[in-house]
């Protein structure tokens, strides 16, 4: 059974694309046939983060418009088996995304045997974002511990419960998960950042985990290799945990508490 998962947030720059690339990579590493689709028409970036930008020939809009076959547009990852991606168009308009077209592409991907279809939503709550979430079975809401991001996430949760195929059919609602990214336990301890508890209390959805703030994310995107592949980093470990949890395994939460430092280091900073 295929599962369609939207990675969404409302606010821009919180880590949707990073999360899409890493979760798709992680799920594929565990042996599931996975595709990540970039819905950010006009501002595609998932290809860069996944390091396949030079192999883009056709895109999602070409497929929807019948200008290319789906198989021609799909890019197979060179590092990870079972991992594929479908780029967004860089030149076309968001209005080229229509529910029928998107639905057709997703249906075809299911027939091709993809276990997980990861939809990387653009920022905002306009057409692109709505199309990315419309057919989703599950949603990962990416949130930063910061006021505007939390507010936007709450808004997006409202849309997930109202403007999606599942909501309109009145069946089982989309399963939502909260992923708190760019988390800094040190700042939380100083009372300068909303804590996991704060955000969970405000948004009230199941918790998938935290991704610590880290330079490794930018370094990974510089190289075009999802950071999850760099297993020596905290962020990689955090994403690996998140992937296991998303697939239903229990994993203790890490990176929420501040790292204990020695006495001397605490005194001299």
């Amino acid at each position, binding site marked *: 059974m295929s599962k369609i998962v939207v990675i969404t947030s409302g606010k821009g720059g919180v880590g949707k694309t990073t999360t899409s690339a890493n979760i798709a990579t992680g799920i594929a590493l565990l042996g599931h046939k996975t595709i990540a689709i970039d819905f950010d028409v006009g501002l595609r970036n998932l290809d860069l983060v996944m390091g396949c930008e030079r192999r883009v020939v056709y895109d999602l809009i070409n497929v929807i418009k019948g200008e290319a076959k789906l198989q021609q547009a799909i890019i197979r990852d060179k590092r990870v088996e079972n991992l594929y991606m479908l780029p967004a168009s860089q030149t076309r308009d968001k209005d080229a995304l229509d529910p029928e077209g998107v639905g057709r592409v997703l249906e075809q991907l299911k027939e091709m045997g993809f276990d997980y279809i990861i939809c990387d939503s653009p920022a905002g709550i306009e057409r692109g974002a709505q199309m990315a979430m419309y057919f989703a079975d599950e949603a990962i809401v990416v949130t930063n511990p910061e006021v505007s991001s939390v*507010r936007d996430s*709450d808004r997006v949760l409202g849309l997930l419960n109202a403007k999606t195929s599942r909501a309109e059919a009145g069946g089982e609602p989309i399963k939502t998960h909260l992923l708190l990214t760019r988390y800094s336990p040190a700042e*939380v301890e*100083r*009372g300068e950042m909303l804590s996991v508890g*704060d955000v969970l209390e405000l948004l009230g959805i199941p918790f998938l985990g935290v991704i610590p703030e880290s330079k490794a994310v930018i370094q990974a995107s510089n190289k075009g290799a999802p950071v999850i592949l760099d297993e020596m980093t905290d962020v990689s470990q955090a994403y690996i945990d998140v992937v296991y949890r998303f697939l239903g395994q229990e994993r203790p939460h890490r990176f929420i508490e501040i790292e204990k430092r020695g006495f001397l280091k605490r005194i*001299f900073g």
Partner: protein
Amino acid sequence: MGLLDYFKRKAPSAAIAKDRLSIIVARERGTSRNTPDYLPQLQQELLQVIAKYELIDLDQVSVNVDRNGGCEVLELNIVLGENGKPKSDAPKLTVAPAASS
């Protein structure tokens, strides 16, 4: 955290953030998730009907839904024009029939 930081405790801004968010999130859930979305159209149509008979200002009609416990109140607030005089040159307005959905 250096030695000095132990002694100067700043007001924790995260607590302020949480308070502000609890209020705004609760309010937006109340309006954007539960308010019927026909309100703007209702307001527009009411305005058209009233404009046939009275001189009114566009901003003088407000439609709100209030919720008190289990009870919902549709509140309609219309401020009539000066002296409440009927409009003499009432334009011909066509009021769209109420949507059946």
